[in-house]
């Protein structure tokens, strides 16, 4: 195969649509994607902090922003992404401490993180929107 000669030694197979990652692998990607998304939210939160800290007018402006539709959408998206990132992060910390190295347990903790994330998304969604 031409690909093999180019790469030198081993065959390269990188068809992303056909590679099937283990659940922990999917979670790892999710951790990275949510992490990058959260960076984008940083300036908006610092801006919110600035509003809160700039007197009575600024404070009520910040509250109005948070209670408006765009604010609620932004807040819920950020909270959901943060929950998912935190849960997969806690799982990473657990793995650092040697918990769930075992393949089957790793799969279970990955699934637990997804289930817990979904549950917390529903709870916070209700809290923000109702």
């Amino acid at each position: 195969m031409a690909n093999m000669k180019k790469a030198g030694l081993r065959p390269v197979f990188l068809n992303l649509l056909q590679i099937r990652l283990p659940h922990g692998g999917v979670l790892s990607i999710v951790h990275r994607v949510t992490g990058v998304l959260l960076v984008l939210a940083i300036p908006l939160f610092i801006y919110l902090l600035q509003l809160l800290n700039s007197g009575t007018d600024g404070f009520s402006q910040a509250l109005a922003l948070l209670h408006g539709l765009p604010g609620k959408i932004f807040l819920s998206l950020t909270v959901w992404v943060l929950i998912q990132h935190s849960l997969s992060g806690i799982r990473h910390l657990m793995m650092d401490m040697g918990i769930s190295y075992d393949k089957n347990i790793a799969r279970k903790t990955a699934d637990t993180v997804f289930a817990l994330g979904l549950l917390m998304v529903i709870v916070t969604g209700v809290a923000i929107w109702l």
Partner: protein
Amino acid sequence: MAVGMSERGSLHSGLGEWVVQRLTAVYMLFFIVIALIRLSISPVSTHADWLLLSSGLLFQIALLLFIFSLLAHAWLGLKSVFLDYIHPWRLRFLLLMVVALFVFATGVWALLIVIT
């Protein structure tokens, strides 16, 4: 002594980053949990509530530490993502410089907000 045998050299910097990434994560989790408990005990609904909370020295230090942890965590996280997926080194360097500028500017901005 051969390089890399007992002296860890510049490669050692990765271990420090690994520790910082985890310490900042643990601090941020801790801060968020404490903040949520505090806000559910006494919610901030008026400007007076906010003044009472935000004028405390302990809160200011904890908040600044949170923001700096966040920025350090973001910098290290983006760095590992770029190292893995952006291979042309000029582009990677450029992106890392943009992130460094962003982190620095945001840090100064937050510092000014909290101390003034």
